[in-house]
């Protein structure tokens, strides 16, 4: 995923314009791989930090990179309200249906029946509620300009992801509004599957709950 957006930055010649807000979680180490300006945000607050940066530097390309716990649990309010204000920022929302860095706890996007270290009997809607469909929730708001869900489980899907990222950046550069790309991403370690099985699980199970495609798009 990091490689994908790094490639897009280079192809669109945006490296020197970009300011990235990595989150708490595995993705925080992005700065070890990608040579752009970055500032860490507290867990969940990526959209608020990105808002502050973008309002001061509207000429820069500002994006955050957040996981499902970060964005859809602890940072729900920040995400929803940044989207609702139509902040000219881009969010990459990596959805792997689990808290990865802390060791595989239940995420707000964990599927019904999914076994995690904190839902050992499987996610029960009567006890733990339903997986949150972030793009669909945000699509109810007036302001967001571009919301798309993609995946990175096979070459064709990765090419699609790249296109979606480029499109999201375009939306920001043209000051069209808030953009978010949700990326279904495998976490073989915490899913306790091998990498082939993980990629298949995205197709066979996960994308049935989180359908791929454009969820909302205004004219760019």
């Amino acid at each position: 995923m990091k490689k994908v957006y790094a490639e897009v930055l280079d192809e669109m010649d945006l490296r020197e314009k970009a300011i990235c807000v990595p989150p708490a979680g595995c993705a925080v180490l992005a700065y070890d791989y990608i040579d752009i300006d970055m500032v860490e945000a507290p867990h969940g607050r990526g959209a608020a930090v990105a808002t502050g940066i973008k309002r001061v530097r509207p000429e820069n390309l500002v994006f955050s990179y957040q996981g499902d716990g970060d964005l859809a649990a602890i940072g729900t309010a920040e995400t929803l309200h940044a989207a609702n204000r139509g902040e000219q920022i881009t969010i990459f929302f990596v959805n792997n249906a689990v808290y990865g860095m802390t060791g595989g706890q239940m995420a707000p996007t964990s599927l019904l029946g999914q076994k995690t270290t904190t839902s050992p009997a499987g996610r029960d809607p009567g006890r733990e509620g339903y997986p949150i469909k972030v793009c669909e929730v945000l699509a109810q708001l007036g302001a967001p300009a571009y919301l798309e869900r993609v995946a990175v489980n096979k070459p064709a899907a990765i090419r699609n992801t790249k296109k979606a990222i480029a499109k999201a950046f375009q939306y920001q550069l043209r000051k069209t509004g808030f953009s978010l790309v949700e990326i279904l991403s495998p976490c073989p370690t915490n899913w306790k599957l091998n990498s082939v099985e993980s990629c298949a699980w995205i197709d066979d199970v996960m994308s049935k709950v989180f359908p791929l495609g454009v969820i909302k798009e205004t004219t760019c």
Partner: protein
Amino acid sequence: MKRLMSGNNAIGEAAVLAGCTCYFGYPITPQNELPEYMAKRLAAVPDGVFIQAESELAAINMVLGASVAGARAMTSSSSPGISLKQEGISFLAAQELPAVIVNMMRGGPGLGNISPAQSDYFQATRGGGHGDYKIIVLAPASVQELADTTALAFDLADMFRTPVMILGDGMLGQMMEPVTFPAKKKERHLAHADYVLTGAKGRPARLVKSLILDPKEAEDHNWKLYRKYQRIEQQEVRYETFMLDDAAMAVLAYGTAARIARGAIKRLREEGLKIGLIRPLTLWPFPNKIIQDTAKHLHDFFVFEMSTGQMVEDVKLALEGKARVHFYGRPGGVVPTPVELSRIISRHYYQSQKRKK
């Protein structure tokens, strides 16, 4: 020219004149006049940014973003809201980002009330959030001082790349007094701007972070912050004294409590009681030295706070048992009169005199 203004509004005007272009906040009494002022005032400032955030958490993190993008940014709240901001303040301190935070304290704990109180002294002077850090805490006592302190807060924040808190209370925020502002808008002098994120154009990429997984490296970072705090302790202690020279008892109070104490001392002086005042203007760094020097001449210190007693602990630490420490507190939003306080001080004063004989 003098203008009649409320404390909250005066902070707003002073902030804009100090070059603050970004304000982020969430409504809470008794400080709502400040965001309201900023909403109007920043609309008239080129590059002015005002956002009514969805929460105090969001507000402080917008401050973080604006600060790392190179703007002078501030937020304000009152006690319960300041608790929520502590996570962000810890990050600002760890990432060494300048910011100004205003706390117009109210009665607590919990929801408490909206009356003036001084119950957040510990939270403010001990860092407030998680981790080994301190923030500069300024304690003005009039509308004019609120204005002057606001300009100072932005300068100190820049100079030391650290969050600075202005610790007022509901009384200071709401009351109106004449105030003068500098005639000209101040140019910002950003001595250490190499942290500002602008996009890595023609320079290596910059990274502003606080995650340091290697404990030894994290230890170095902690000691680096500690050395900065030592420099602040050496350079930035501020206080004021009143009728202290011939005093037999020194009253210690800050902010609104110091104004009440001053009134009480004036009355007691008329009755011939030799009482003086030490008023800390910086609560951290705390004015230890003047307290220690004063203890060479007198042996009774009387601490008055609108709390059950928080600053009194710093006074005791400064004195290291070398003098008696008396205390009077009114928590929960009660603001006593100078007459009430003068009676209490007078009783302690005569008891001490008797003890000496």
